[in-house]
């Protein structure tokens, strides 16, 4: 899948595909915008773009920054809402258990869903492992995942498209709404913007108002538009504000308020048995259920003659009132209880190691995220408009220091952005005659390498930083824990739950996590189905981003367009034997780059039929 940004719901980190950005015709301006964001100037960036004269370059930067806004809204919702933070907490519960999980010399089956399935367990020789500690950890993670999957269940619409009303769908609706609120401002709604991002404008060529037909795009990002009819016949700004407040409130059922932390402590005889979370009824805390109930309540409210509030603050009060009547808790009370649960979890984790080791453990990074969450909660309780109004939220984001950013260079060449630390680096020997390429060298100046010698080229894949502030400035405690967390723990978690079927721009990390599991464990078994990668998607986002009508197929170099091509992930291409054979025929250099380059492939229809 072609992505510029991706939020990792299990760490709260924002992944940035710097490799793709660097290939853009306006890459200098895009990277400058990214740097302004890293410098805590998101708000000023918007103000500056607002005032610059219209141009094709500005339109590309505005579209790019709007995507950044989209993802940052995800980060805020993940951190602040109980559903979002539950996703993060799920990850950290696993990360904390991972060292002990790996330390036990027991048979382990991946992914966990296959281990939990009685049939697959027997097939993979896992019978009898149910009482092991590693099984308990896997069971806990799989249970958490099942809950999220139940909430995000997809339904088939009569148009043939799939839709969902769960937490993830709500997160997308909130982020998309926030993103287009920027784009629809008169200063940005220029002809260039309408061409670049037609779906952001109601009268654009993909606008749902202009057509009866619904696409998958509508079902993913704009499914809530038609539900606004429950509140008002017209899609007025007030109805939209109320809908977004309802969506936000749907994410605020505290899943953790009466949960108990896992006991993974050791005694003289080895690890204690894991005490599992008891059966709890969480149906009224899942976003899909809460959204349904809230929408029902507001449908009755309007029928009773209730008026839609004009101001965001009044909408906020009204939705809090509805929440109190439905579940005996306001939104603020739900988030407050959720944060108390986080404190309980931290209090249970902290004593498990010495003070020296503590800063290296995932719980140190978790503590930073909880602090970040508290800052957002304080902002929401003192002035809800800081969260509810887009410009105010942009200012608030600039004030939040500890958000982890992960920069990915899928092409594998070049240095990181200034101020970032490397997660993974490797020295490799180049085949004879190949020149090293480094983005650190000033463009336009070719630097001759020492010919005829085998050169070492630094292959950088990803680097990271905490947005906008050094540890000393912001009091961050988990700085030392983040690199391992982002580069090893998080990919291992994704691999353990989804195999290679997790769509990520960090495919190399998943591969390395698998190597690490295979070599570090004596008895690991894999369900082969989940090792097969099939990440194929439409290519229109690629053509939109680069402002292209046509482009060359990355395999055969034939010219193709958005209708005649797809995007295939690097691991997907690598899993095709026919394609590997094709690369071999192109010689040593083609194989070298295939090994090192983890960027996506634009594949024309002919090559797709031939190789995928």
């Amino acid at each position, binding site marked *: 899948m072609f992505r510029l940004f991706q939020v990792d719901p299990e760490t709260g980190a924002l992944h940035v595909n710097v490799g793709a950005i660097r290939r853009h015709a306006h890459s200098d301006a895009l990277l*400058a915008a990214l*740097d302004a964001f890293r410098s805590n100037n998101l708000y000023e*960036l918007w103000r*500056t773009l607002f*005032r610059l004269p219209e141009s094709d370059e500005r339109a590309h*930067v505005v579209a790019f920054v709007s995507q950044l806004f989209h993802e940052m809204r995800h980060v805020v919702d993940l951190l602040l809402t109980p559903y979002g933070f539950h996703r993060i907490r799920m990850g950290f519960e696993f990360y904390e258990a991972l060292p002990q999980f790996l330390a036990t010399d027991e048979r382990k089956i991946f992914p966990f869903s296959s281990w939990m399935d009685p049939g697959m367990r027997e097939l993979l020789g896992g019978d009898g492992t149910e009482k092991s500690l590693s099984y308990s950890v896997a069971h806990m993670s799989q249970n958490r995942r099942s809950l999220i999957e139940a909430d995000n269940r997809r339904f088939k619409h009569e148009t043939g498209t799939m839709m969902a009303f769960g937490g993830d769908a709500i997160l997308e609706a909130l982020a998309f709404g926030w993103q287009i609120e920027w784009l629809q401002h008169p200063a940005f709604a220029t002809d260039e913007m309408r061409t670049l991002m037609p779906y952001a404008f109601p009268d654009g060529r993909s606008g749902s108002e202009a057509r009866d037909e619904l696409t998958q795009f509508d079902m993913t990002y704009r499914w809530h538009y038609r539900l606004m009819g429950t509140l008002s016949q017209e899609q007025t700004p007030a109805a939209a504000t109320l809908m977004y407040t309802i969506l936000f409130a749907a994410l605020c059922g505290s899943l953790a308020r009466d949960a108990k932390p896992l006991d993974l402590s050791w005694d003289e005889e080895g690890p204690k048995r894991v005490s599992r979370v008891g059966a709890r009824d969480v149906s009224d805390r899942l976003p899909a259920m809460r959204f349904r109930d809230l929408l029902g309540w507001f449908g009755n409210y309007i029928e009773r003659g209730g008026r839609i509030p004009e101001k965001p603050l009044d909408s906020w009060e009204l939705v809090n009132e509805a929440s109190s009547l439905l579940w005996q808790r306001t939104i603020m009370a739900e988030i407050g209880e959720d944060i108390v649960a986080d404190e309980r979890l931290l209090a249970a984790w902290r004593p498990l190691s010495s003070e020296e080791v503590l800063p290296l453990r995932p719980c140190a990074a978790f503590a930073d995220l909880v602090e970040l969450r508290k800052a957002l909660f304080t902002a929401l309780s003192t002035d809800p408009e800081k969260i509810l109004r887009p410009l105010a939220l942009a200012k608030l984001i600039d004030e939040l220091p500890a958000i982890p950013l992960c920069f990915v260079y899928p092409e594998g060449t070049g240095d990181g952005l200034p101020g970032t630390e490397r997660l993974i680096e490797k020295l490799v020997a180049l085949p004879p005659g190949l020149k090293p390429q480094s983005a650190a060298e*000033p463009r336009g100046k070719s630097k001759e390498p020492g010919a005829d010698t085998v050169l070492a080229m630094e292959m950088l894949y990803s680097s990271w930083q905490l947005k906008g502030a050094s540890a000393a400035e912001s009091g961050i405690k988990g700085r030392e824990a983040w690199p391992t967390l982002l580069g090893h723990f998080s990919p291992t978690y994704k691999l353990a739950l989804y195999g290679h079927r997790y769509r990520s721009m960090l495919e190399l990390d998943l591969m390395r996590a698998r190597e690490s599991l295979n070599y570090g464990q004596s008895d690991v078994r894999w369900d082969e189905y989940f090792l097969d990668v099939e990440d194929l998607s439409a290519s229109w986002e690629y053509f939109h981003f680069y402002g292209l009508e046509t482009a060359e197929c990355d395999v055969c170099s034939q010219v193709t367009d958005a209708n005649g091509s797809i995007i295939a992930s690097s691991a997907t291409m690598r899993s095709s034997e026919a394609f590997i054979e094709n690369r071999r025929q192109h010689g040593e250099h083609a194989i070298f780059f295939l090994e090192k380059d983890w960027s996506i492939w634009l594949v024309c229809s002919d090559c797709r039929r031939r190789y995928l």
Partner: protein
Amino acid sequence: VSGITPYLRALSSYPADLPEEYDHALETFLRLVSPRLLQSAELRTAADWRGIVDLWEPLFADALLDPSHPEWADKTWHRCRVRLILMHLLVAHVQSRFGYGATASEGRNEVRWSLIYLERLVDDRPFMPGPAGPALDRETAEISDDNLNTTLGMGAQWFDVYGVDSIAWMSGIAETEVRAIRDKLLTRL
């Protein structure tokens, strides 16, 4: 690199790997201006003239500190900000000369800079009438033009009080040139 990159880079605290043709001068100028504007307005309110002069000193000789610079031709918002800086500086130079009795050498420089800035302001064309684009709203443009007229009026008083010959002597600029500036100013007023 032309276009909008310098404006965006001015918001960043990270060094960047940029091509040779990149306009570092513009980025440097914008980086110096942005954090100072609010401070300058506060100093103006507090009548801290010496503070204003010290604040903007790094930009004294910058060619971009001129509303008629080609860089600002299609950027009304930036032109408005440059004009504001010049107005603050002109008032501050003149007032500090009157109020704080600068030394002879400093005073000579003060007068010289005052003349240079005054001429740049005289040459600056008004925003109104004219369409205020999305970058600059009508109200801001009108206020800026009003302020410019007031500042130019103060410049005329300055010539009245000191006379062309004294100003020429203090600034070290030829009397004919000083007279030309005054005539241009009076014509504009």
